[in-house]
C-alpha cells in the first residue's frame, strides 16, 4: 500500500464515531499495524512470522508439562477442567465465531454427551459398553441431535434462532432433571432414564487399549483431554482455512450475499451446528469419565454464559483467542475460590485495568498514591469516631492481607454497611463513566478505596456469588470497551 495523502482528514479513531465508510482508514489498516514500534511491535512481528505449527507448539507445549511440574492433584484437576472448557469453547466457536449463528442451546449437547456416555457405560441399565464403542456412538448421536436442532436455522434468522435453541436447553434441563419418571404420554409406566435429581453415578472409567484410566489419579484424563484438544484444534484449524471455513465466514459476514454467490447456506449452517454438537458431546464423555457421575445441575444456563464469556473474551472466530479466553476465565474463577489468592488476582486486575485506562504512567502513580493516603486518612477517622465498631476481621489474611489490615476500614458487623457500600460503589462507577478530565481522576480515588472496602468486607466472604457477579460485570465492561473481544480483530465495515 502506498502512503496516505497527508491532506486527507485524520481517521476517526475516537470511540463515539463509528469506523464506517472511511476508505483511506481501511486502506492503511495493515500499515498502521506494521507501524507499532518498540518491544511489543517486535514481539508481534516475530510471532506473526513463525510458522503456524510452531506457534501451536509454543502455545500448547507448556500445558503438557503441567503434570511434570506439580504432583498436586487439585492443580491437575483444574488443568483438566480448563482443557474441557477449552474444548467446549472451540466447539461453540464453530457456530458462533465461524458461521455467526447464535446457539444458546450449546450446553445441552455437552450434557447430552455426558448423559449418553453415562447411560451406555455404567451400571444404570447394566450395559457397561466399552469405551471405544460408546464414544463413537455418543459423538454420532450428538452430531445427529445438532443436525436436528440446526434444522430450524434453515428458516429462522438471528434472534429467533437464539430463542429456539434456548428453549431446547430448557427442555433438556427439564428432561434431565425429571427423567427419573419418564413416561410416554402417561402410558406404559414410568421409566428411569436419567436418574432425575440424583443423576447417574458410578460411571465406568475410560479404557484405552486395555488400560483403565483411573479418574482418581486425574493425570490420565488430563492427557486424554489434552490429546483430544490437540486433535480437535488442528482439525478445526485446517477446516477454518479450507473452502468450508471460508464459506462459513462469508455466511457470517453477509448471509444474503453468500447465498447469492451460490454458497450452500443451509448445508453450511447444519454442518456448523452438527460439528459443534459433536465436539460438545465428545467433551461430555471426558467430563463424565473424569467425574464418574453426571447431574443435571452441571449443564445449566450459568455454564452457557461462562462458555460464551470465554469465546467472547478471546474474540469469536479466532481459535487461539477462544482457547486463551477459556484459560483466562476458568483459571481466574478457580483462583477466586481461595480468599488469599483471590485478593492478589483482584488487586492485580485493578492495577492492570488502571494501566490500560490511564495514560501516561504518572497519572496511575498519582491515583494510586492518593488512594493509599486517602485510605489511611479514612481509616484513621473511622477508627477514631467509631472505635467500638471497627474491630472486624480480615478474611484469611496472607502477606497482602497483613498490609491491607492497616489500610481498609473493617467494621465489626460488615454485612449491612457492606451492602450500602456495594450499592454506593455501583453508583460511583456509573457516575465515573460520565465524568471527564481531572474530575474523573478525583472521583477515581474514593471509588478505588470503596472497591477495596466492598471487596474485603463483603465479596471475599461469599465467593460463589462473587464469581457470578464478576462474570456479569466483566461481560458488561468488556462489551462496552472492546466489542470484538480481547484477541479478536475489529471488523471494518464498508458501507
Amino acid at each position: 500500500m502506498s502512503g496516505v495523502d497527508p491532506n486527507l482528514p485524520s481517521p476517526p479513531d475516537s470511540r463515539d464515531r463509528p469506523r464506517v465508510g472511511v476508505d483511506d482508514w481501511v486502506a492503511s489498516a495493515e500499515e498502521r499495524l506494521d507501524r507499532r514500534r518498540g518491544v511489543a511491535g517486535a514481539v508481534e512481528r516475530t510471532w506473526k512470522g513463525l510458522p503456524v505449527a510452531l506457534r501451536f507448539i509454543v502455545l500448547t507445549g507448556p500445558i503438557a508439562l503441567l503434570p511434570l511440574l506439580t504432583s498436586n492433584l487439585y492443580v491437575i484437576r483444574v488443568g483438566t477442567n480448563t482443557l474441557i472448557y477449552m474444548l467446549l469453547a472451540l466447539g461453540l466457536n464453530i457456530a458462533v465465531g465461524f458461521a455467526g449463528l447464535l446457539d444458546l442451546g450449546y450446553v445441552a449437547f455437552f450434557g447430552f454427551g455426558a448423559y449418553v456416555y453415562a447411560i451406555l457405560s455404567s451400571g444404570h441399565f447394566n450395559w457397561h459398553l466399552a469405551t471405544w464403542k460408546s464414544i463413537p456412538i455418543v459423538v454420532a448421536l450428538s452430531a445427529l441431535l445438532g443436525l436436528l436442532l440446526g434444522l430450524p436455522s434453515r428458516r429462522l434468522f438471528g434472534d429467533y434462532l437464539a430463542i429456539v435453541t434456548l428453549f431446547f436447553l430448557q427442555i433438556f434441563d427439564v428432561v434431565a432433571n425429571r427423567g427419573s419418571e419418564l413416561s410416554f404420554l402417561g402410558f406404559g409406566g414410568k421409566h428411569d432414564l436419567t436418574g432425575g435429581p440424583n443423576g447417574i453415578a458410578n460411571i465406568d472409567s475410560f479404557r484405552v487399549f486395555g488400560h483403565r484410566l483411573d479418574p482418581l489419579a486425574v493425570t490420565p484424563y488430563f492427557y486424554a483431554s489434552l490429546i483430544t484438544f490437540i486433535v480437535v484444534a488442528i482439525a478445526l484449524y485446517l477446516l477454518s482455512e479450507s473452502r468450508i471455513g471460508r464459506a462459513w465466514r462469508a455466511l457470517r459476514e453477509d448471509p444474503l450475499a453468500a447465498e447469492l454467490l451460490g454458497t450452500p447456506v443451509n448445508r453450511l449452517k447444519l454442518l456448523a451446528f452438527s460439528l459443534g454438537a459433536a465436539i460438545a458431546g465428545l467433551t461430555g464423555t471426558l467430563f463424565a469419565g473424569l467425574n464418574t457421575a453426571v447431574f443435571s445441575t452441571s449443564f445449566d444456563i450459568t455454564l452457557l454464559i461462562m462458555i460464551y464469556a470465554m469465546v467472547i473474551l478471546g474474540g469469536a472466530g479466532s481459535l487461539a483467542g477462544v482457547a486463551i479466553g477459556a484459560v483466562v476465565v476458568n483459571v481466574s474463577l478457580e483462583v477466586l475460590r481461595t480468599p488469599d489468592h483471590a485478593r492478589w488476582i483482584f488487586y492485580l486486575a485493578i492495577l492492570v485495568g488502571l494501566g490500560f485506562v490511564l495514560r501516561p504512567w504518572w497519572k496511575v502513580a498519582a491515583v494510586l498514591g492518593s488512594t493509599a493516603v486517602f485510605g489511611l486518612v479514612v481509616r484513621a477517622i473511622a477508627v477514631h469516631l467509631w472505635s467500638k465498631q471497627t474491630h472486624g476481621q480480615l478474611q484469611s489474611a496472607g502477606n497482602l492481607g497483613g498490609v491491607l489490615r492497616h489500610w481498609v476500614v473493617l467494621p465489626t458487623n460488615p454485612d449491612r454497611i457492606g451492602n450500602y457500600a456495594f450499592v454506593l460503589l455501583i453508583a460511583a462507577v456509573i457516575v465515573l463513566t460520565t465524568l471527564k478530565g481531572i474530575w474523573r481522576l478525583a472521583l477515581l480515588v474514593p471509588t478505588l478505596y470503596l472497591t477495596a472496602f466492598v471487596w474485603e468486607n463483603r465479596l471475599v466472604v461469599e465467593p460463589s456469588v462473587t464469581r457470578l457477579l464478576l462474570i456479569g460485570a466483566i461481560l458488561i465492561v468488556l462489551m462496552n470497551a472492546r466489542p470484538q473481544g480481547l484477541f479478536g480483530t475489529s471488523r471494518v465495515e464498508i458501507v
Partner: protein
Amino acid sequence: MELLAFDPSFFVDELTAGLTLGAVYALIALGYTMIYGILKLLNFAHGDVYMIGAYIGYFVLTGLGGPLAPRVPLVPLILLMFLVAMVGCGLLGVVIERFAYRPLRNAPRIAPLITALGISFFLESSAQLLFGAQIRSYDTFDLHNSVLFVKGIHTTVHGVRIDLSLVRIIVILSAVVLMLALTVLVRKTALGKAMRATSYDREAAAMMGIDVDRVIVATFFIASALAGAAGVMVGLVFQQVSNFMGFQAGLKAFTAAVVGGIGNVPGAMLGGFAVGLAESFAEGYWSSTFKDAIVFGLLIAFMLLRPTGLLGTPAIQKV
C-alpha cells in the same frame, strides 16, 4: 382414567390461574416487545428487572409495618407498592439503557446481547448479595385477616364452582388497566407516535426531528415500570420472592412476546395470556413435572410453523 372425566370446576380453576399468570407474563412481555421493537435488542435482563420490582414491593410492605400490622390501609398500601416498584424499576431500566446499551448502539448484534446476559447475571447475584439467597415471602395472606384471599367471587353457577379471590381480581384488573393505558399512550400521544416511528425506522425518525435517545429512554422507563408492576403482582398472588425468579419468568414472558409477534404491542398481551393459559392447562391436565418442557416444546413447533407470531407481519428484508 381421570383424564376422561371432565370437571368444569377444575377447568374454571385452571382458567383463573392461567389468566392470573397470563396477566403477569403479558406485562413482562410488553416490556420485551417494546424494547425489541425499538432497539432490535433481546433484553435478557428484563426478567431480572421484574425480580427487582418484586423485591421493591416486598421492602415497601415490610417497611410500612409488614403484613401483620400495616401502618397504612389496604388500598393505599397496595397502590404504594405498585407505584414505588414501578418508578424504581423504571429508573433502573433507564440506567441500564444509558450505561450498558447506549454505547453499543452501532456495535455488532452479538455485543448488546452478551451485555444483556451480563446485566442479568449482575442483577441476579447483586440481589443475592444484598438480600440473601433465601426465599422471602410477602405473606399477603396475613394482610387484614386474609381479606385478599377470602373476599372475591365465590359462587356456583349451574353446578360449576367459581372461585376468583380478590387478589386475583386485583392482579388481572390492574394488568388490564396498565395495558389499556399503554395502548392509549402508544396510539394517541405524541410520545407514542414517536415510539412507533422510531421502531419503524430509527434513522428516518431522527431525520424527521424526533429525539431518538429520549424516545428510547422513555421506552425503557415504561417497559421496566411494567415489569416492576408484574413483580409486585407475583408477590401479591404467589407471595414468594427470590433472586432466581427473574430468568425463568423472563424466558416465559419473552416466549409470550414471540408468540404474539415480537415488536407488536397487542401481540404481547395476547401472547402473555396464551402462554399463561397453556402453562396452567398443561400443568392441570397433562403433567405438572413436564409442564415447562411441554410449553417450550409447543413453542418450538409454533416458531417453526409461524416464525412471525400470531399478530406479527412477515418482515420484508431490505438489501
